[in-house]
């Protein structure tokens, strides 16, 4: 600091005069601390919403059986695309974009090419949703929502709790010629499943096998276009259905 009287025309003098006049004031430290905290909280919140929405989409696909139908040829793929929860997927993408914007406020992200942070965010969403879909998180919330026991978000589970007309998940209870009976895992109803030479199916189906049947469902019959066995797991369908059937733990034979 110099003790010489400042020339009022210099930039230094002008700035000090503005400061002394009180026209500008220094922002308090808490302003910046709050800004930092809000950024961290916002990032964590966006990350949590991304994982929640993405894992809900995976849960919903398992719950409706749509997850298994791409294996049933072009028609299966069409049903899969049509039954995707597009609004949830769109919302997930919006929050992924928001998360990417927030992450890029941090130096570790903006110092590297954008591709890295985008890949990191997408990988985080995929792994996070996969991890959550391995737990009973959404199933429990789903059950609560069915019993009207969720204070917040119950509508989401109820609105997406739908059945696909061409997909039925069940357990084989009885075999007869060119057909077998299944007990629907969602409704406990019994269905006659008709098969023919064109039905794409494993040859060694047995009683108690759990299967996904692709084909239009009528009142008590299904004309199967394709059948896939699902390996037993510990998934529990909604409470009124006694079967165990885990989202994310299906294996298709």
């Amino acid at each position, binding site marked *: 600091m*110099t003790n010489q009287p400042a020339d009022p025309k210099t930039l230094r003098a002008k700035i000090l005069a503005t400061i002394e006049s009180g026209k500008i004031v220094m922002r308090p430290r808490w302003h910046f601390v709050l800004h930092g905290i809000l950024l961290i909280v916002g990032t964590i919140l966006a990350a949590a919403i991304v994982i929640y929405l993405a894992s809900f989409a995976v849960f919903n696909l398992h719950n409706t059986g749509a997850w298994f139908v791409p294996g049933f040829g072009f028609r299966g793929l069409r049903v899969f695309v049509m039954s995707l929860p597009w609004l949830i997927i769109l919302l997930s993408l919006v929050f992924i974009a928001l998360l990417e914007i927030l992450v890029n406020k941090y130096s570790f992200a903006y110092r590297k*090419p954008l591709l890295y942070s985008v890949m990191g965010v997408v990988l985080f969403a995929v792994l996070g949703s996969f991890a959550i879909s391995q737990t009973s998180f959404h199933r429990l919330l789903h059950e609560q929502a069915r019993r009207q026991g969720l204070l917040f978000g119950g509508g989401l589970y109820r609105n997406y709790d739908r059945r696909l007309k061409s997909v039925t998940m069940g357990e084989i209870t009885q075999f007869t010629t060119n057909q077998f009976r299944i007990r629907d895992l969602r409704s406990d109803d019994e269905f006659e499943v008709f098969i023919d030479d064109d039905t794409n199916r494993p040859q060694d189906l047995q009683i108690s096998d759990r299967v996904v049947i692709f084909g239009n469902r009528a009142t008590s019959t299904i004309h199967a276009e394709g059948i896939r066995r699902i390996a037993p797991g510990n998934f529990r369908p909604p409470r009124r259905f006694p079967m165990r059937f885990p989202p994310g733990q299906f294996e298709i034979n």
Partner: protein
Amino acid sequence: MTIPHQTDEDIAKLVQNGDHEVFGLIVERYEGKMLRYARKFLFGHQDSQDLVQEVFLKAYTNIRGFDASRKFSSWLYRIAHNEFINAIKKRGREPISIFDPDTIFPHLAASDNPEQDLDKEQVKMLLNDCLDRLDVKYREPLVLYYFEDLDYQQISEIMRIPMSTVGVRLSRGRQLLKQIYDQSTSRP
């Protein structure tokens, strides 16, 4: 240790603690640099002086947000960058894209060698002559590198772009300068 010999970061700490008089020293130290940065980056802008004054006032207002463990100059240049970019946007003569493909993919750092074709003085001379014909996104890193003597990391911090992109822009900027120069000298 007397104040004039203290580092920028030490002085910033004093200002943060309420000694606003020493902020004058910051102004003295950076006035010339900021004016040069403004004049080169915003060539032809009539209000460089006012913009630089605004930069210092914003720096004072936000100085408690400065982390004294980091480099003060990069922090101040970042404020100036924002102020100057806003001025260019306001002027509306040069388009500034929010999204730049250069920042998406990784680039090989080795692809850039600052002194490959032209020496520093040559580039500075060319840059002085051709500023008005260079795109904003090439002009700024060239100005920061050649006139402000900042390194890649500082430029990356100031412009908030990857370090590899700084290298790419410097390299392309120099190529453009050469092209502009060659075109202008080959004209009858």
